[in-house]
């Protein structure tokens, strides 16, 4: 792919790239390149697989994406559709390898773990600026102990920073149910966090 072509593709919207990808594989390369870091991070947040396994999952996601390009519903945001495919693939991989752990790994001092902890501040007096590696790890451990349905919504809401409508499109659930699920997940998270004395760190 020439540099000129690459620059042209970089300036295109996701939807335009989808159109071009149907006739030009290089456009598809630009499209997936855009989502590679985002999805790789998402896979790591949703699973405890190592880097190689995460890359394998990501490749499967991209191939599924390519196969289904004509099925992209333009009523959706492309990013929501990509997350939906990624989410389904992760769940499908998890079911295939039930023996493998399905847990959260957070980077030390993760900004997103701070965002997840902010909602606890009313009841737990958490000073967000003091969130450190230990706290981030503990957030990860708490998330890991949650049921997958609660973990999913917390990761999408607080780590991927997505709106309720986007989460609704990804999980194929009504926005109202997403809001309820997030509230329940927050309650569960709080209870476990208190139990693990998250505020004492």
């Amino acid at each position, binding site marked *: 792919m020439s540099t000129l072509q690459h620059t042209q593709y970089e300036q295109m919207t996701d939807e335009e790239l989808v159109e071009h990808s149907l006739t030009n*594989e290089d456009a*598809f390369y630009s499209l997936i390149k855009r989502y590679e870091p985002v999805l790789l991070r998402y896979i790591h947040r949703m699973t405890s697989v190592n880097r190689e396994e995460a890359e394998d999952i990501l490749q499967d996601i*991209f191939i599924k994406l*390519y*196969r289904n390009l004509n*099925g992209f519903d333009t009523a959706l945001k492309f990013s929501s559709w990509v997350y939906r495919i990624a989410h389904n693939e992760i769940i499908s991989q998890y079911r295939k390898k039930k023996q493998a752990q399905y847990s959260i790994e957070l980077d030390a001092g993760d900004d997103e773990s701070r965002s997840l902890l902010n909602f606890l501040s009313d009841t737990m007096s958490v000073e967000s600026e003091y969130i450190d590696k230990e706290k981030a790890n503990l957030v990860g451990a708490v998330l890991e102990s949650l049921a997958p349905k609660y973990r999913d919504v917390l990761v999408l809401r607080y780590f991927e920073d997505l709106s309720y409508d986007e989460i609704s499109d990804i999980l194929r659930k009504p926005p109202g149910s997403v809001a309820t699920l997030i509230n329940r997940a927050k309650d569960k998270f709080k209870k476990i966090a208190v139990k693990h004395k998250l505020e004492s760190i």
Partner: protein
Amino acid sequence: MNDISKDTLKKIKEQRIVPRTKNYFLLRRSTVWMLFGLSIVLGSLAASVAVFQINNAEWDLFKHYRHSVLEFILLFIPYLWILFLIGFSIIAFYYFRRTESGYRYRAVTAVVLSILLSVAGGFAVYKTGLSERIETAFEDNIPFYRGTSFHSRMVWMAPEKGLLAGKITGIAEDGTIKLTDLNGKEWEINAGDALWRGRLSAVPELEIKLIGSKTDNNCFTAKEIRPWRGRQKNQGMGMGRQRGKMHQGMNSSQ
């Protein structure tokens, strides 16, 4: 770090992976909508028979029925068809949730919407008269279905309350009708002053329902005689259905 995107593209080219066609997705979406539509149609047929049964139930029997109103109403509720209606509405909901944007609706909203669509369709089908044909087909061909109306039939087995049903076994010279009721008991029916609904006349083997009073252990004076399978609405207009053939459901209860 590997360039996963590059590796993916290489794999796509090597394995000659191609995107599924637009028609594939069109067919998939159409199939889901078709199955949703089919569930609504089947739900409408079930609703139409339920409407037909409710509309044609013999509500005027209440004055002879000495139990509670609720008990009387429960006796005539078409449970089976309502169950079918709910079942098909749930199936319709299942497929609706699988349409492109069906997941955005709350489950309760989608189920209620499916039921309302089926009920609206049911009234439309009822107007065409198809519901009566469906019910007759079920009664004639499905023994299980006949069994489900056993309780409402047994309302007629209350001679003390003035209700009796059975099959004419003979007609005496003085006009007294000999009748075997649903339990196999022999009766002598005085029908001299009875009003015959549905253009009936007394012939052996005819199945009838009688409203009147018990005058002796095996004697009954009829004030009104209805055909066993006639419909209340039609009877009122003097056009009730009369069928000469034996009602099998009645046999089974004897």
